[in-house]
């Protein structure tokens, strides 16, 4: 049904604006290199040869928050570092997404003391939580794919 069957091989596809925009956003998300602790090493492993993250469009970790749209908080967030992370989050332009990778930034993890913020969701709103200490590279990829599903289902409610 629709115009596509009639057009044959002329090179048109029809879709909604939402799907097109979301598809573009999910396929070219640039992460910010904000690895804090041990989970950062697993994030680097995911970036490298065996569990390549570039096939998801995340070729390089951008060093500057102004040029990135995904903040992967990888590692434990201390009280000294929390204002810094908030500042990084504020500097990122919309639309921005946050993945809390690992146990320490999801819920405080193994640390339950004066120095660690129990969960980075006290500092910024989080889209996807990934459990594990540290999560395997496959777990991080699964988290990224979950974020992709979330992005695909987002309604466009702002002209941004």
């Amino acid at each position, binding site marked *: 049904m629709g115009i596509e069957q009639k057009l044959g091989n002329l090179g048109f596809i029809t879709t909604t604006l939402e799907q097109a925009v979301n598809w573009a956003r999910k396929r070219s998300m640039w992460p910010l*290199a*904000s*690895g*804090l*602790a*041990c989970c*950062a*090493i*697993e994030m*680097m*492993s995911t970036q*490298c*040869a*065996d569990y390549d993250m570039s096939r998801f469009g995340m070729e390089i*970790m951008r*060093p500057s*928050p102004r040029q990135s749209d995904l903040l992967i908080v990888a*590692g*434990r967030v*201390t009280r*000294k*570092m929390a*204002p*810094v992370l908030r500042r*990084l989050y504020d500097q990122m332009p919309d639309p921005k997404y946050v993945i809390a990778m690992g146990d320490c930034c999801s819920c405080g993890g*193994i*640390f*339950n*003391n*004066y*120095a*660690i913020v129990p969960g980075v969701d006290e500092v910024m709103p989080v889209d996807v939580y990934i459990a594990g*200490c*540290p999560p*395997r590279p496959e777990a991080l990829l699964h988290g990224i794919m979950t974020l992709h599903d979330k992005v695909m289902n987002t309604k466009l409610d702002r002209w941004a």
Partner: protein
Amino acid sequence: MYGPELDVGKSNLSHLFSERALTGETMILNMGPQHPSTHGVLRIVLELDGEEIITCIPDIGFLHSGIEKNMEAKRYEQALVMTDRMDYLNNLGNNLAFCLALEKLVGLDVPPRAQVVRVLLAELQRISSHLVWLGTHANDLAAMSMLLYCFRERELILDIFELVSGQRMMTSYFRPGGLWRDLPPEFEDTVRAFLKIFPGRVDEYEGLLTHNPLYVERTKGIGAISAEDALNLGLTGPPLRAAGVPLDLRKMRPYSGYETYDFDVPVDDRGDTYARYIVRIEEMRQSVRIVEQALDKLPDGPFRSSNRKFVPPPRSELGRSMEAVIHHFKLWTEGFKAPKGSVYMPVESPRGILGCFMEGDGTAKPLRVHFRTPSFANLQALPAMSEGHLVADMVAIISSLDPVLGDVDR
């Protein structure tokens, strides 16, 4: 605001900068906690005259996790799990330091099989840590392909750790008295397959960097430090050996049977970044030698001490022996008690001397556990190494010191 204000006149840090900063003649630059090349959350405040570094002030503590205080609230075997997270590239090495200190404090024996396996896995961990170092060091100097090669080799080592303990990084495999469980049967073949290909790969890495004029230009003469300064400033590990002091605790105060292995300790005398690179590459080769010897002489026998006051019995014994059930119950509810007294046990981690100071007080929880971590002490030498160099050399110097911020801040 976190940390010192960058307006030098208003802050209380004016004693750290030179007088030219107060007039604005030199520039204060913040190399912040989020930086692609500071190897973690390290903040450095630089005073620059153009491109030349006048003063360099490291500001640490962004990863301070209160591990030492948290350990005082846990029993000894629970506290062991937290040691993996300190120097997260040398998990088994941290476990080893803690276990050796604990075994010395309570007087626990370790069977020979466990000692050989400990040496084997600690050396594999050293190789994996140096691989991460090499990959990130070369990546900072814009040779990004090295990162991909080194992490490819590291995956092989992480496969071995996963085979042995079920976890890639935070294994907690060394327990007081020996190991957590015995080695699986595929262990020997996997390690031998790794040992067959790895020396060729190290030759590949050397072929890419050692005589590469770009690399040599960026690292020769950069961050040089003399042997006496290095000792005074508390440097240990490869930076100290690259400055000419042959201090290696595996040879000087051997632990866990290191005196029975035949290996050399590479020493260079130039003390700069290039020398540290050469020393670490050679250390990787020597570690391969140690792993081979350990694999050849792996004895049979128990993998953990049979002192039931400290080591829980295997589950198969619980159905047959009443004492085993009582020991199991006491150990898992109360934990074993350590005597009053303190020990200090230094071991050689890939970064330097890792010392575990442990004080017991007669209860099941430690009174004080302190880790003398190598990266904390090595980072103190950063200002002395970097003054007079250009800003672009700062990255090379930091990465040659190999700080791991979990180790620095604990």
